[in-house]
């Protein structure tokens, strides 16, 4: 297994089965971390507490909790309501020992489009998360009116200028929308908190509708799709600019959800090995805190 295997984790939304089944599959495939959706915790058939316990018992490091949506750009009562939602998610995040909350750009039609207001709201969110040691990873969405992609998200993050607010970048968005890789030069590597990885089967995506359909149905693991080279270039570029955070396989695919979790976790492992051995030659593991903690946890477990 390559030295840098621990940099990769699975987003367990990519797998079917109970929370426990998916955590076990992740672990059995050799992964040390997993991204978890809040719905998987609060939707646990026994209780939220049982889900939290299952996560702790798995021994996995939690890459982050997902997803806070439509937070920014609201005012008055709506803003207050969203702050409450955010607080609740942060508390959940803290309970499962996660140090990152994935936050997607608002797709609400009535959300304010003023970048100053958006930045101010996200800064507030980062402040809510700060005492708990949780970082906010903000992600542009193709369906958002204001923050459609990572360059736009990067501008907002720079404007907000808060150390606990950074970016989540999804390889799918970059490749599907044909974003030039040089755009990554505009981003400080320490501002990237999370990179999500997936490939897809279609050669090209011609419309926003097609992108949405592909997002939901045809994502596959890196190395399995039509854009292996593009993914390889993307990751090499990230390494060049100095990114040393986590990679999460976010491969939501309705076909995969009809296959056993173990099968999907194995595919994830193959993808991690392909990336680790042939693309991502992190010659020495960077003494990143998260990784050291994870390594310690695994040794203890």
């Amino acid at each position, binding site marked *: 297994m390559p030295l840098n295997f621990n940099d990769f984790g699975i987003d367990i939304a990519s797998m079917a089965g109970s929370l426990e089944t998916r955590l076990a599959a992740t672990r059995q495939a050799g992964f040390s971390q997993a991204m978890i959706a809040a719905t998987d915790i609060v939707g646990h058939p026994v209780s939220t507490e049982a889900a939290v316990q299952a996560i702790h018992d798995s021994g996995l490091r939690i890459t982050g909790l997902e997803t806070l949506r439509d937070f920014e750009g609201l005012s008055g009562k709506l803003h207050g309501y969203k702050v409450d939602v955010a607080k609740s998610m942060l508390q959940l995040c803290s309970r499962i020992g996660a140090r990152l909350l994935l936050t997607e750009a608002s797709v609400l039609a009535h959300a304010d489009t003023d970048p100053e207001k958006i930045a101010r709201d996200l800064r507030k969110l980062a402040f809510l998360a700060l005492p708990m040691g949780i970082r906010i990873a903000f992600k542009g969405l193709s369906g958002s009116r204001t923050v459609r992609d990572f360059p736009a998200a990067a501008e907002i993050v720079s404007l907000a200028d808060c150390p606990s607010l950074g970016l989540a970048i999804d390889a799918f968005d970059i490749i599907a929308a044909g974003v030039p890789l040089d755009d990554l030069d505009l981003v400080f590597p320490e501002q990237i908190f999370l990179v999500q990885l997936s490939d897809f089967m279609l050669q090209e995506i011609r419309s926003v509708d097609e992108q949405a359909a592909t997002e939901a149905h045809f994502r596959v693991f890196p190395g399995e799709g039509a854009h292996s080279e593009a993914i390889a270039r993307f990751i090499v570029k990230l390494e060049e600019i100095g990114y040393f955070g986590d990679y999460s396989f976010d491969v939501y695919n309705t076909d995969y959800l009809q296959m056993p979790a173990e099968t999907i976790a194995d595919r994830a492992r193959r993808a991690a090995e392909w990336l680790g051995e042939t693309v991502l030659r992190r010659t020495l593991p960077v003494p990143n805190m998260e990784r050291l*903690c994870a390594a310690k946890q695994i040794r203890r477990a």
Partner: protein
Amino acid sequence: MNKETDRESVPEPPNPIGMDGIEYIEFTTSKPQALGGILERMGFRLVARHRSREVELYRQGSMNLVVNSHPADISRTVTPVECPALSAIAIRVRDADAAYQRALHLGAWEVPFHARAIELNIPAIHGVGESLIYFVDRYDEFSIFDIDFRAIPGVDPHPPAINEMNFFGVVQYVGDDRTRDWSEFYGQIFGFRPLADSVRFGIMPKGLVLQSPCTRFYLQLIEPDSAGQYSPMEEHLQRIGLGTPDVIATTRELEKRGIDFLSTDMVHTTERGALTAAMLGGVMFELVHTQDGK
């Protein structure tokens, strides 16, 4: 104000909430008498008790220390509760409600009323770990202690300080890579400013020192030495720093009263400062040389 033409951002005033020093610092413990014994040796006097809660006020010169052993409050403190924890800092401000609303607006967490040690409606936000930060604006003509507390009969309500000791600051342990986060937190919400690395006080030079906007109080943020020593939830307020113009004389006086100071190759008393041994499983005080009780 015209938003269109006045695009230049107005710089935040250097003291955005009118901070004016520290009203009190709070310990929480299930062993108030044991802690009280230590505070007495440190020169504090028990001067008042809360009217209805198990909360005591110790005082020395300008310093108020609140010892909270009210059972309802203990559950929220870091375990083990036998070891007293620094559980709150009460900051004097120009307008407590305004400072509080401003903090909430920036993203601070409000503290429900029942979780507070003192019954008066003193607004509070969550600080590091399980600790709280209060905003107090009644401290000039009468204080919160005049209302909620009963003086202990026959005790000088204003016992003088040993060698002009005063609150110098608080040391906060933070997680790895968390100094910038906390510096941002204290900077935005209270107006604390980081000092240059060349400016150092006392004998414990590690970490980042933040100066309060009233310039009389310091927070020292210290990350763990080795990776992974503290998880985020173990971040906490670690010790109180006491300023005194003569560290050596103050140390001698406190030693006479039964306080031990560390004396190792790495940490020992000098004119610049001193550090007590840990008491009751972790309570420490640091002495820091300051001019004329400032």
